[in-house]
């Protein structure tokens, strides 16, 4: 991998890292997803900053070139899309949490309120039955 390529990828990694941290901070990305991305980013940065490691991995998987620009671009796109989709899932999940909490609180509060007097419709029907 060329120095220029490494710099670009490191920059992309750092941007992604700050984006992830900000999403977690704003409760737009579940912290568990954030952990997975952060570990992955640090792993990728480690490989990029240690060329022998990258060459070793290249040999290990039987690839001819350390990197293919097109593959990397596609990979970056997929990763960004993945973050976006997970952020959307987190947002929907958080809304669900709010609904569940709100429902629970309202039910508890409603149980404390005095109930209106019952109309006792069963008694009335029974009385009608007797009349008949």
């Amino acid at each position, binding site marked *: 991998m060329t120095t220029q390529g490494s710099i670009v990828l490191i920059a992309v990694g750092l941007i992604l890292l700050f984006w992830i*941290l900000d999403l977690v*901070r704003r409760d737009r990305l579940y912290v568990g997803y954030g*952990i997975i991305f952060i570990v992955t980013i640090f792993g990728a940065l480690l490989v990029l900053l240690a060329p022998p490691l990258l060459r070793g991995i290249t040999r290990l998987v039987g690839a001819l070139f350390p990197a293919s620009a097109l593959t990397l671009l596609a990979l970056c796109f997929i990763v960004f899309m993945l973050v976006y989709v997970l952020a959307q899932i987190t947002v929907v999940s958080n809304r669900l949490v709010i609904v569940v*909490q709100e*429902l629970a609180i309202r*039910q508890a*509060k409603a149980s404390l309120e005095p109930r209106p007097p019952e109309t006792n419709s069963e008694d009335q029907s029974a009385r009608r039955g007797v009349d008949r």
Partner: protein
Amino acid sequence: MGTTLRVLVAIPAYNEAGSIRTVVQRVRTSLPDFDLLVVNDGSRDATGQILTQLGVMTTTHLCNLGYGRAIQTALTYAQRSNYDVLITLDADGQHYPEQVNTLYTEHLRGGWDVLIGSRYIESHDYSQSPVGRRIGMRIFSWLVRLVGRRHIYDTTSGLKIIRRSVFAPLTRWHFIDFHAEAIVYLLRLGYSVGEYPITVAERRHGQSMYSLLSHVTYPLKTLLILLIAVVQAELTRRSQR
């Protein structure tokens, strides 16, 4: 004891059918002046039925949201119902409700925003816990001291007394379990957090909320959210200036 304040005791419960009846009865006996709320966090066992039989005020989550969200529900309830103090207790029977009175007196005397019932403040001895948890507690205690500038020995205690002043900050932001990350967040915002010694009993019923996998994921998640809590607290302080 000052009884003019409105106090709510909240017990988050998830699948605690084996212990919830005893815990509720002990709280009612030991703390008759305080209101009681159980947050049934989507239990799949008989917890809900037992709570109905006991006639205890319950907020029921339709699905399991986790400990942090259950505490948040209790905080929101306490805030909306104009309670002055919220006391959280575990539903597994490990806490002695009898000790809450002493803790509450210390809370009033010390003017703490949050007072934690601590298992380790006197002995500083974590040896009764499993190795993994012991290491985790030491690390988080050290991290809280590092970034919160206060030594809290028991960051994972479920027995807490929370003053109304911190209801809003604790419901405004998200936490995992209201442990180290919440403590750091409040300390960085300038609230007072203290500890007071308590003793705990062994868990007799049910299972711990920490599964095998969570022993790996919990420290990582807490570490991440703890560091973000520092940033969030700083941003909150700046926005309030």
